[in-house]
Every structure is written in C-alpha cells, then in structure tokens.
C-alpha cells in the first residue's frame, strides 16, 4: 500500500500534431494529440504530458486549443510544457486546462520564475524539466531543446530548483533519448538519492525491462516515454504488469 509508480506517455506536439524526434532531431508524425491522449487514458496512463516542441509565438494559439481539447476529454493529471516564459504563461495554461506546467530553458534563464510560479500556484503544479548529457565527470545541462550547453550540472541544478519550489523533476538524458537503449539509471539514481521531490525519468525507453529498471535501478517515481507508446510497441498495461511482477505498486 503506497503511492503507485506513474507511467506517463508524452505527446511531443508541433503545430497541433504529435511528432517524435530521435536525438532531438528528425521529426516523424504520430497523430492527433487529443485522440492519442484519450487512447492513453483508456489504456491506463497515470498522467498525460504534452510538450510543445517548437513553442513559437505564432503557434501559441494552436497549442492552447490542443490543451483545451485534451482537458475537456481526459480526466487524469495533465502536464504541459514548452515555451513557458512568465508567470502569466503559467496562469494561461492552468486556466486553459493544464494541471501542471513543465519549465525548462526559462527556469535556467530566469530561476525566479520557478520561485514565483510555485508561490503563486503551488509547487504541485510546477515541474522543472532538465535535459542533460554526460561529460565524463557529471551531467551538463542544456537549454533550447538540447541545443545550447550551460555550465550547470544536473544534480546541483535539480537541488537548486527543488529549493526554489519545483514540485517535480522531469529528467531527460540526451545521451539516451531516442536510442531505445534504456534509461540513464545512474543519472536518475544520483538525482533520486539527493532529492525530496519526485523524479520522472525520461529518454531511452525501448523495451519493457528498461521501464522496470528505471524504477528499480534509477529509483524514479514515474517513467515517461513517447515513441514506444505512440507506435504501440509496448502497451501501458504491459509495463504496469511487469512492474507489479517486480513487487512494485501500480494502478491497474
């Protein structure tokens, strides 16, 4: 009896369509976001995450339409990320139907945003997403969808945003993302051992065992994946059964 491990399918959305990049590039179309969200809800997803991957100013109204469409049909927690720059952006998304927002680049440019947004709306709705790559010693944090390297390392940055009021960390390994070779369990465990807030592991899911290992070895509280669910390679139900067989608590 305890909080269940959460399985979170992620919709990478561009111009109102689900797409999936490999190593943050090559984009392939994977369908209508609202339809996909409904399908995942029926299949037993514990949350839905939607990332607006180009998040341009012009595409903002399309994004909000998509958020509203999903929120009207799906009654499980719903996180939206991409292009959030201000407390007002957070407020607009929450009012449109998001339950949580995920902030990445803007948290690095302006850490105060995390502090202000969590004070205003509560830590529970502020997720800080981190993209990082191993540099031989620790994990360097990147901004702008993995384009620009910063001086930050993932562990100290995650601890910093926890202090600022983040309610969860969404940790994406750039080394693993799109490779289908498993999660970066060392990175995840390093963070999990040092954080009091939940850790969502992302990047690298390819097989059932990868998701189980992300929890058992990586100590993640939740596992996020995109393409394996989109292309129906692995069902959410199968993942949960595998976790349950390992004695982990899941919602079935």
């Amino acid at each position, binding site marked *: *009896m*305890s*909080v*269940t491990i*959460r399985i979170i399918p992620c919709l990478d959305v561009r111009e109102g369509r689900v797409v999936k990049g490999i190593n943050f590039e090559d984009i392939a179309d994977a369908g209508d976001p609202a339809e996909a969200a409904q399908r995942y*809800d029926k299949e037993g997803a*514990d949350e839905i995450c939607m990332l607006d991957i180009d998040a341009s100013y012009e595409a903002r109204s399309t994004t909000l339409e998509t958020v509203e469409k999903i*929120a*009207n*049909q799906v*009654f*499980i*927690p719903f996180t939206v990320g991409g292009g959030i720059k201000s407390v007002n952006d957070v407020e607009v998304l*929450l*009012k449109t*139907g998001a*339950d949580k927002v995920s902030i990445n680049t803007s948290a690095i440019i302006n850490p105060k945003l995390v502090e202000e947004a969590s004070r205003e*709306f*509560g*830590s*529970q*709705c502020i997720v800080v997403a981190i993209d990082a790559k191993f540099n031989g010693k620790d994990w360097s944090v990147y901004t702008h969808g993995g384009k620009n390297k910063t001086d930050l390392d993932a562990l100290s940055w995650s601890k910093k945003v926890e202090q600022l009021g983040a*309610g*969860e960390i969404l940790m994406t390994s750039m080394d693993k993302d799109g490779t289908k070779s498993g999660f970066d369990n060392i990175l995840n465990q390093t963070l999990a*051992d040092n*954080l*009091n*807030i*939940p850790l969502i592991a992302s990047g690298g899911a390819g097989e059932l065992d990868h998701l189980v290992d992300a929890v058992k070895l990586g100590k993640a*509280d*939740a596992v996020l994946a995109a393409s394996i669910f989109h292309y129906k390679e692995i069902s959410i139900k199968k993942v949960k059964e595998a976790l349950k067989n390992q004695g982990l608590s899941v*919602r079935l």
Partner: protein
Amino acid sequence: MKIGVIDYGASNIFSVVRAFNSLGASTKVLKKSKDFENIDKLVFPGQGSMGACLKKLSENDLRDSLIFSLKNLPFLGICLGLQILFSESEESEDEKGLGIFPEKIKKFSEFKDRTIKIPHMGWNQVEFSQSHFIWEGLESSKDFYFVHSYASKEIDEKYIYSKTFHGESFNSAVAKDNIFATQFHPEKSGKSGLNLLQNFIDWKI
C-alpha cells in the same frame, strides 16, 4: 439541477467544472455571496494553503454563505475542501477552520530515508471504512489521485468513510449528514473519479 462550484480566487476550479460538465451536469461558479442563489448542490475544490484559503473566503464575503449552505445542501469538499471543514490546521495556526469536525489537520510525518515523499502526490489506494451512496459502483482499494502535505489523522470513527496509507494512515474521505469530503481529486482520478462525481450528482438527501 445546478451545482455551485466555489471559486475563492486561489484555486484551479476549471478541472472540476469540466468534469461535471462532461457528465452532463450544469455548473455555476460562485465568486460572491449573491452567486449562491438558485443552486442545488455545492462543491468546494481547494488547493494551496489553508490559511490563504480561509482568508480569501472572508475577504470575498463567501464564508457566511458557505456555512449557511453547508447546513442545507449536498456538499462535496475536495482536497482543501475537506481540510477547511475541520477546526484547525497545523498549516495555519492563526486561521480557524469551519469546525464541522472539531479535530485538527496535521502535517505528514517526515521520513529521513526519503522513501516517503511530501507532498503526497500521485495515485494511492482508497480503502473504504463504511458504505455510502457516494461509493456506489466503486470498489474498495482502487486508486485515486492525491496532492497534499497535510491530512486528517484523527476524527470520530463514525465520520470516516475511507483511509489511505502514506507512511502512516490518514482519512481520505470523511462524511457527516449532507457533507461528503475527499482528500483526493475525483476530477483527476479517471473513470473511478467520474463515477464518484456522478454519484454526487445523483445523491439525494
């Protein structure tokens, strides 16, 4: 039939409104005391800090209307909407709650090994303690979605309708007469949550 949803100004009420609307129920957002006219049921969805919530209720002149309606209408409290029914909370020692239940809301115990995280966030099992119309069609031990750091741990046994375990046992649903309150969020608990909200729509007292 119209369901009034209290909007005291610091809580995301939209998902509750959306969930009721998806079930075909008509809702009315209540921001001032005069909005309380012509409603048949009352929902109080709350998030954030209890002190801030109680302060806003008084500032916006909602407290008296709420107390009056609590005596007459079927009431569903969600999350903070459960906690304000108690007399006090460790979260805000200066602000007094509504006192339907005389006990105190307390913070979760902390665990040094980080195995129990606070806030209690995620899906957890709701173990029924006694039957209630609101539980119709639902099974005990099913998961519902929680987000909170404070909880009801002590209350007269007869008001406890479910318990949940997060490092320690707490009361995840309490009820008395026309009042039913859940610590979890039915509006975010998928099919089970919608089932519960439908029962509230159908509940006659």
